[in-house]
């Protein structure tokens, strides 16, 4: 599209001529203020409006709709189950996944052996050798139901399907909020087999309950114990328990856990990783007033919180008293002694009920639902609710969503959509039918947000600047074009139904309207692509 000087002058001249026509056509009808608030709520409590949603919420009444979303258990979501049925790994336990989807130990061992022999070879040669070996050893892999990668792909796809189709939109948003808050990384060794159960059995059942229960459930989850290494943390004074036999799951994972020297009684030691993040990221916040000394003391309290049964295909939380540091500790000024497993629980209670936690969690929720820099008064009220109710998550979310600040005109469109929010909202807006969401999930990854694959414990950022980039924007524009043109695998769209006001009921901006009026030669799919790629569609 290289335009020389002459070409540009010509274009400018044409535009100049077109201006009166644009003015003559007049503004297209802008929505009523009530409808604007409804669109806002659909954007914030969920993944954006589908065709007809604004009418449906208007008929029900916005307040009632919000209240209904605050009680997802009252909303029938049976149709969603059917849409998820083709992803076979979703309902399996961590053990079943390890059994059916992990590359067998002997195959891995062969690959490792070969790898050691090939030291110095390029990654490409290594990869080729790996593929050859996998084929050669195909016999050993006949018991496999699928590749390890399938487990993560299906999880990612299911997340997109839920965002697009669930009637419990706020429930999906909140679950996403919490799994991002308590982030784990599916790319770390066997974590990919633990993440599904983590979301399904740890995050989801506690998303609306008491914060302390949610915190405790994550602390005890094999997914978190593994991800932040606490399962390895032991009192420096403790003797290493004898390992039972050779092999086992522990040797299968990457990164390989330390190979214990059997029968040597080798000392293990303290690992501070979880202790630090539980305060910095899960509860108090980085400015919550804890010290390095507190980190070490908390780590000592959590010694012995470990995973058992990884080898037997039944990973579960266990407290191992033999590696627990039983000596006295002081955490945030409070004395903790001799409580065994109770010490960690005591720490979680101190953290969950700390005023800094009430504030930090309220701040993050307000940021998600209201604005990158939410009104201080609203955060104050949400934090007050948190303290008053003993950390009742539903009450805190209700305080935010039923506040005047939430519905005020200033915060409308104030958030830039994350890649997940953008893709889900584009699919919803276009009324598309998703039969296979894996390509959509892949696109979300390309935009910088590979689902369940955020390595640092911070999770994904929830502020605009994190998602404003050239390549991220380009991926969005291309997805917009591909989606509208029916070029996304597994997604069907009826281009003829994609009128701009259906795709974007909040009313397009003037530059976008003018652009559409100018580019009269475009078919419905391209016009729809422009709307889905417009600056206003990147916001919620």
């Amino acid at each position: 599209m290289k335009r020389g000087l002459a070409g540009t002058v010509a274009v400018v001249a044409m535009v100049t001529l077109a201006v009166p026509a644009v003015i003559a056509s007049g503004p297209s009808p802008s929505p009523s203020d009530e409808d604007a608030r409804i669109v806002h709520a659909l954007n914030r409590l969920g993944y954006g409006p589908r065709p007809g949603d604004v009418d449906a919420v208007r008929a029900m009444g916005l307040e009632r709709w919000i209240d209904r979303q605050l009680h997802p258990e009252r909303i029938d979501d049976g149709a969603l189950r059917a849409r998820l049925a083709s992803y076979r790994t979703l309902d399996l336990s961590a053990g079943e996944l390890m059994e059916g989807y992990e590359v067998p130990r002997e195959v891995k061992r062969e690959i490792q052996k070969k790898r050691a022999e090939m030291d110095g070879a390029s990654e490409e040669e290594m990869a080729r050798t790996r593929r050859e070996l996998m084929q050669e050893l195909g016999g050993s892999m006949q018991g496999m139901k699928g590749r390890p990668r399938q487990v993560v792909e299906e999880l990612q796809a299911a997340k997109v399907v839920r965002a697009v189709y669930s009637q419990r939109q706020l429930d999906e948003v909140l679950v996403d909020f919490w799994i991002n808050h308590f982030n784990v990384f599916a790319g770390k060794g066997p974590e990919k087999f633990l993440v599904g159960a983590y979301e399904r059995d740890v995050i989801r059942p506690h998303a609306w309950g008491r914060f302390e229960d949610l915190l405790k459930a994550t602390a005890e989850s094999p997914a978190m114990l593994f991800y932040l290494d606490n399962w390895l943390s032991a009192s420096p004074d403790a003797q290493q328990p004898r390992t039972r036999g050779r092999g086992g799951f522990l040797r299968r994972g990457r990164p390989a856990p330390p190979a214990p020297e059997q029968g040597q009684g080798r000392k293990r030691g303290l690992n501070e990783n979880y202790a630090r993040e539980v305060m910095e990221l899960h509860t108090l916040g980085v400015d919550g007033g804890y010290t390095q000394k507190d980190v070490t003391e908390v780590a000592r309290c959590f010694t012995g919180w470990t995973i058992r049964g990884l080898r037997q295909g039944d990973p579960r939380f266990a407290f191992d008293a033999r590696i627990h540091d039983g000596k006295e500790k002081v955490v945030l000024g409070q004395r903790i002694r001799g409580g065994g497993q109770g010490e960690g629980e005591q720490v979680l209670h101190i953290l969950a009920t700390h005023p800094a936690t009430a504030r930090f969690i309220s701040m993050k929720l307000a940021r998600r639902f209201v604005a990158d820099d939410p009104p201080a008064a609203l955060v104050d009220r949400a934090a007050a609710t948190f303290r008053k109710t003993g950390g009742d998550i539903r009450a805190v979310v209700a305080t935010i969503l039923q506040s005047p600040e939430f519905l005020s005109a200033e915060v409308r469109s104030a958030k830039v959509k994350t890649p997940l929010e953008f893709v889900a909202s584009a699919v919803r807006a276009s009324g598309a039918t998703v039969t296979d969401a894996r390509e959509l999930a892949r696109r979300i990854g390309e935009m910088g947000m590979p689902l369940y694959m955020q390595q640092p414990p911070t999770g994904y950022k929830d502020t605009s600047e994190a998602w404003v980039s050239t390549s991220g924007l380009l991926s969005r524009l291309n997805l917009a074009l591909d989606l509208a043109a029916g070029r996304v695998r597994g997604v069907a769209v009826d281009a003829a139904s994609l009128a701009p006001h259906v795709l974007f009921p909040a009313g397009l901006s003037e530059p976008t309207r003018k652009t559409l009026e100018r580019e009269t030669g475009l078919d419905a799919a391209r016009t729809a692509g422009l709307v889905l790629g417009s600056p206003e569609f990147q916001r919620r």
Partner: protein
Amino acid sequence: MLTRRIFLKSSGLAFVSFGLAPRALIRSAWAAEGSRRKKTLVVVFQRGACDGLNTVVPYGESAYRKLRPTIAIPAPRGGSRDAALDLDGHFGLHPALEPLLASFKDGSLAVVHAVGSPDATRSHFDAQDFMESGTPGRKSTEDGWMNRHLQCAPDAAASPFRAVSLTPTLPRSLAGRAPAVAMASIDRFGLRPAGGAAVARGFEDMYAGAVRDVLHGTGQETFEAIEFLKKTDPGRYVPAAGASYPRGPYGESLKQIAQLVKADVGVELAFTEVGGWDHHAAEGGVQGQLAARLRELGHSLAAFQRDLGQRMQDVVLVTLTEFGRTVRENGNRGTDHGHASVSFVMGGGVRGGRVHGRWPGLTPDRLYEGRDLAITTDFRDLLGELLARHLGARDLGPVFPGHDPSAARFPGVMRA
């Protein structure tokens, strides 16, 4: 020669009243610039806190071996690949970094040891944030140090690729008012051709018109970059001199930075990152997890240097990591979050072949907070030196507010 500013002044402003930025005009101005060789600074961020002590090994210290009973790298043994590779009789390279040894020996690679950020935080998030913003301890800084360098040295004739990051999203280091481009890869950086010219024009106009939106600037930069990139012919790049980059996003990103440098698209700052350094458990010694990461790092840097050949005279590459790791290995044969770490500096004008920085030692009384390698070179002094002596930056004060790196504190990695 027509510069961007002159062009804007002479002919561009006339069209602004129509709400149409004269983007195509700007482009032709760049084209008129022709191939102007520029100095380039490449920043490689090792996210996750790289263990500097096992990267450039102080094998001369008995405390090193004592505190790391299972993961210490053995002292050099006549070039054996199961031991450190000697640099200067006190320090040795991890053997997985063997591809870098020749560069150290020929003087094109320097090491700065005990370098880092003076802030005491051991949070990855905060430490990366501080290092990228260039303001340790100050969280309210909105832009990154690389972006502030661009702001301090405005270049009206700059290309859209003056600052480029080969990452899916723009890193904190490059965030800010000055334009910067992020892209996961060169060859995928374009609009679907099926959309046609009208769609491309439509997007351009919509984003040009959204003047009050933060996406406005991003949109402009995106479309300018797409157009500009066509010159590099991304599909047919073959690295020079048989340079072979390791597979994977990191090697690929360095390859593409080399490609952009050689294409003369006006790159002054380039950024890429490589993760996987947070080895709390089973870090390994000569072999193992850290060794694998270092092997990839070393092969990539060596390939980059080989690929650029003579052109490396215009380039300096520096590695950064948010902090180092505990001197003592933990109970899981790994290391926890520490303080100082190590940086490599490679390229033209580098005073290579030596380990720069004052070595603080590993005896208990010399350790930071009794456990970590102390910092003797503030990362801002290292970066300040590269900006001043390689890119010719005149005023470092605004780049590192509250620090003001002066030549007296520069570690001396560049020939003055």
